């Protein structure tokens, strides 16, 4: 938190909103995991727990007009960009009131009305989309900025290099945010990535940054700066955010000993948890008392549980919806 210490002037409301958003993500994931374990959720899902400071630190620097693209591990981005629990849980359960009317599920969840252009089940699949959104903003004379979230493993997709080249050539307002949690599924990314990630971006003439992804204030501070610069046409940028996922690659990945140790997990969870550490800082700085934070957490928990109950009881889409939305409607001529 060192870098943020001297930012006490930033107002309390912002801090508490960031804290709350991180808690909301954690809470969403805890409930999603429960839904999986109790066999109430169809399919699998990838938990964002542990990485909350990344999504929140960045999305808090964005306006509703700014865009993001998300990944298979997309619940965190979705919450951070302004989504509501009800429609999210409905989507997770394939219900008609879900953000995608149940058609997308966990891997395509997005509150599109807040500029989330979608989670993506193709690793790296949204890199072009994000860059294209930035191109569109530039061509249409808008000032919105797009943040492209992806994992360390996704840097192996050639698409990234193609779009970085164009983003750099055309000075597009896009920020590539690499959530480096150290793993690509069940493999340490170090074993499958040569050289340096920041150097790869820099080779295209793109300014690159590294930041502690567990420190929400550090992330937010950097994001504020880069978003403002991108808005002025000084982009694109690349940020590597060091972070960690607490759960398995997906909810079904329970026995992880063969690719990472319990000790490693414990260290991250106990010493580097973004919520615990930020909470401690908030109380230390006298911004909120532990009781206030507990209250906030309880309220979020209750919210989440109410949304889960709602979603469990909600209706599936009518089967007539199955062939709706294949093509977009054309305006009557």
């Amino acid at each position: 938190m060192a870098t943020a210490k001297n930012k006490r002037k930033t107002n309390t409301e912002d801090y508490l909103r960031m804290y709350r958003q991180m808690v909301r993500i954690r809470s969403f994931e805890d409930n999603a995991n429960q839904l999986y374990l109790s066999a109430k959720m169809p399919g699998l899902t990838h938990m964002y727990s542990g990485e909350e400071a990344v999504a929140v630190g960045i999305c808090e620097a964005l306006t509703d007009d700014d865009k993001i693209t998300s990944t298979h591990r997309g619940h965190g981005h979705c919450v951070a960009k302004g989504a509501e629990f009800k429609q999210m849980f409905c989507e997770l359960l394939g219900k008609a009131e879900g953000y995608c009317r149940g058609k997308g599920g966990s891997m395509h969840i997005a509150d599109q009305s807040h500029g989330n252009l979608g989670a993506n089940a193709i690793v790296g699949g949204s890199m072009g989309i994000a860059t294209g959104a930035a191109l569109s903003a530039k061509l249409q004379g808008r000032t919105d900025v797009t943040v492209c979230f992806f994992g360390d493993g996704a840097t192996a997709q050639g698409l990234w290099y193609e779009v970085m080249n164009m983003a750099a050539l055309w000075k597009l307002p896009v920020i590539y945010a690499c959530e480096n949690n150290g793993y690509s599924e069940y493999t340490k990314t170090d074993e499958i990535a040569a050289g340096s990630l920041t150097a790869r971006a820099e080779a295209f003439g793109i300014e690159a940054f590294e930041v502690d992804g567990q420190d929400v204030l550090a992330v937010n501070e950097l994001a504020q700066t880069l978003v403002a610069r991108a808005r002025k046409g000084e982009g694109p940028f690349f940020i590597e955010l060091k972070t960690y996922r607490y759960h398995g690659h997906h909810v079904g990945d329970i026995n992880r000993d063969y690719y990472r140790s319990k000790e490693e997990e414990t260290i991250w969870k106990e010493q580097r948890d973004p919520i615990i550490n930020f909470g401690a800082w908030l109380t230390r700085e006298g911004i909120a008392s532990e009781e206030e934070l507990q209250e906030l957490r309880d309220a979020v928990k209750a919210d989440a549980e109410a949304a889960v109950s709602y979603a469990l009881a909600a209706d599936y889409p009518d089967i007539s919806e199955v062939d709706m939305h294949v093509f977009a409607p054309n305006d009557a001529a």
Partner: protein
Amino acid sequence: MREITLSKAVNEAIAEEMRRDPSIFLMGEDVAEAGTPFKVLSGLVEEFGTERIIDTPISEPGFMGLAVGAAMTGSRPIVDLMFGDFLFLVMDQLCNQAAKTHYMSGGKLSVPLVLRTNMGATRRSAAQHSQSLHALVAHIPGLKVAMPSSAYEAKGLMKTAIRDNSPVVIFEDKLMYNDKAPVPEEEYLIPFGEAAVLREGSDITLVGTSSMVQVALAAAETLAAEGISAEVIDPRTIVPLDEETILTSVRKTSRAMVIDEGHQSYGVSAEIASRITEKAFYYLDAPVVRMGAMDVPVPFSPALEDITVPTAEGVAAMARHLVRGEARDVA
């Protein structure tokens, strides 16, 4: 009516639409000053500038991806893919992203983009520059697929494609760029999903796509001289497919052939033939026969290349068989 080339027709369609709608832009390799290797887009950059006619690096997956994102956020991109063979490079962005976004988002996002590319062999360009790959995209729900067979259709279908709110792939036959046809000066659009009956006939229905429409028409001419009356239908779009026009014709003629320049096996002709059989079976006097390109990579040597694609003679010979009831061992 004035006659213009297919190339000019495409150029006009894009220019007219770009004048109408400032959210349209075009991107691809060597599209600006060079106006593409086929010179189809010559002059556009002079009118619309390099902000709207954008030369890209040789990054097909990349700029296809950019187009998807731009289309989701208020622009209407036209992607120029220099050769249809490069479709293989953009399949993920086209089929996993563009085609599915509207559906996966429950209708919240849409991807109004046009991918214009080409098809057609016999240009002595060998296996990686001669393919007709429309079957691949026609199989993917969420994509519309247009196949103009003349300058007239190329213009009208392109304008409709640009105004469509879904991703559209449009295949131009690169051997037809210099072919002229009457094209009205006034604005017109050709709706998707409406086949054209290009020649009426009573003995057999020939359904041809793109380049194969000329082949079908030439075969019909030959057949006419022999007293066989062939009806020629051009579906214009294979997604959506105007089944009704085709079925109405076959119910009248009782015989049908489907001719398409893609590889025959697992190709477009199989779908059209299957629909005819499924829905007009009791009207048929003979099997519906397909003619596609041979199931071989396109060879360079002229001696070989020319025999890989259907010809008017081949079509006429088969039609004769079918009409005379000699079809027991045709295929």
